[in-house]
């Protein structure tokens, strides 16, 4: 009969209307500033720089190789190499970025910089509340603002960070073993060269 389905439909909407007052589970939205959902592990917003230890200046993994700057499709990364060198996590002397800027108003969150980085130095952040009242200076993030500790990285991307840590530890122990072997070889060869 005409109107039967309309009555059924009205019953459905009425059930939703009253149900949303009774059960909280029905409401899919979250009261944002007070209530927050923890971001998913695969979330990515804008890149950040990882540093080991406590000092962002000293522990920065970035060696200013500029691969990310060249690969960045919208060209939002600007790097100036340092004149001097400092030791990296393996104890090897490396350059470091004197300037490392990312213009997040240009960045398109493609993650290519994080993928190409051979030093696991640049990763994707999950922070999204980045509004600023200055649209030029406020959205141009400097090295100091980009540097985040490895603990932070472990917190936002636990799985990924564990893999990176394992890889770096392996590299480090390999380098150490190599250095030791070299030192031993050196120690062995040096006496031989000594004139008897």
């Amino acid at each position, binding site marked *: *009969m*005409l*109107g039967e389905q*309309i009555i059924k*439909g*009205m019953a*459905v*909407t*009425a059930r*939703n*209307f009253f*149900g*949303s*007052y009774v059960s909280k589970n*029905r*409401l*899919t*939205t979250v*009261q944002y500033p007070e209530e927050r959902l923890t971001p998913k592990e695969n979330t990515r917003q804008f890149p950040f720089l990882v540093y080991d230890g406590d000092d962002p200046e000293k522990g920065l993994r970035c060696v200013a190789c500029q691969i990310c700057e060249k690969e960045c499709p919208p060209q939002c990364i600007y790097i100036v190499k340092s004149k001097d060198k400092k030791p990296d996590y393996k104890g090897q002397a490396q350059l470091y970025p004197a300037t490392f800027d990312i213009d997040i108003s240009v960045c398109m969150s493609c993650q290519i910089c994080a993928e190409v980085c051979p030093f696991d130095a640049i990763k994707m952040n999950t922070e999204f509340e980045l509004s600023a009242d200055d649209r030029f200076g406020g959205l141009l993030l400097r090295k100091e603002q980009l540097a985040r500790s490895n603990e932070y990285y472990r917190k936002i991307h636990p799985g990924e960070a564990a893999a990176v840590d394992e890889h770096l530890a392996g590299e480090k122990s390999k380098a150490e073993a190599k250095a030791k072997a070299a030192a031993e070889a050196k120690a062995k060869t040096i006496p031989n060269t000594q004139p008897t």
Partner: protein
Amino acid sequence: MFEALDQIFVTLKHQAVEFFPDAWRAFVSALVSISFIPLVFATLFAFVTVIERKGIGRIQNRYGPNRVGIPLTKIRLCGFGQFIPDGIKSLTKEDVVPRAADQVVHFLAPVVLLIPVLLAYAVLPIGRNMTAADFDAGVLFFFAVGGAVELSVFMAGWSSHNKYSLLGAMRAIAQMISYEVPLILSAVTVIMIVGSLKLADIVAAQNLYTFGIAHWFVFTPWGLAGFILFFIASLAESNRSPFDLPEAESEIIAGYFTEYSGFKFALFFLGEYLGMFAISGLGITLFLGGWTAPFSFLAWVPSYLWFFAKLMALVFIFIWVRGTLPRLRMDQLMNFAWKFMLPLSLVNIVTAGLWHFLGAGLLRWAVCSVLIFGAYVILGRGLMSNQKLGKRIYRYAE
């Protein structure tokens, strides 16, 4: 005491008028009555916009607006302060008029909409002795004034010089004229039974009680059918979903007010809601007993509270329907008006006549119920028999 509370606004007005010299009294009395209509109903409009957004939100399992309360404080009032920023926004927005538009007509259209809508409130009895202008041809006046709304719609659509505006106006006028026929024919039944066009008489005829239940016309077979027809037609008259073809956002942007912005758009919005309240008010007066209580033991509640309670209940149903039904197609709209509503309202008029001439008794209940229900089933079947459900066949596109 309850009597005094019921008549408090009437006595206050009389006392206020006493202060003026004799020659002024009639004028001041009219002025006071008139000035309260926009005040009360515009406030109601402000709240209903929030209630509507919250209600639709709840139907879709969302919260709806719940942030803005009293400005500059942390009190939120469940978001009922939302209309203040909304109002400020629409007042301060740039008023864009297209270069090709007919400037004068474009400016006049929202004004022309608001005038008849506000005039319609003149005859509505919103409480005992509370009618701005209670004259003999009240119902006729209401429909005559309501007919002028189409003029404004056409002015808005034509003067904008925009295809969407014109399409929206064409749809609106076709819809409003089609649905005005069942609207008036369903109201005719009440006029036949009461024998008067005066709204005060119509309310008085329903202000009787048997076994403590009121003699509202909606409790009779012809009255129930009449009320449902009236309600559907008033949905179409006030361009509400599912009859919101004139504004169909997904098809023609915003219909006849595509080219309106800022305060003029707000006026259209206001006019539409005030029209909805006015037509709901008439429906209440004709079928739901106006300001009378449903049960005799509740008769002590002030009459204006009953009127506004019924008005809010009807507005809630308007919102509920909007949250449920999708928009009709143009041909479905026309078929529904001319092939279903019009014949059913004609049958309803015959039924009301039979009800009058059969006299009191169970016989007239049985005869009238069967007549209405039979007509409903047969007409409904006829309306649905033409439906071709299934895959849509495109004649030219393929």
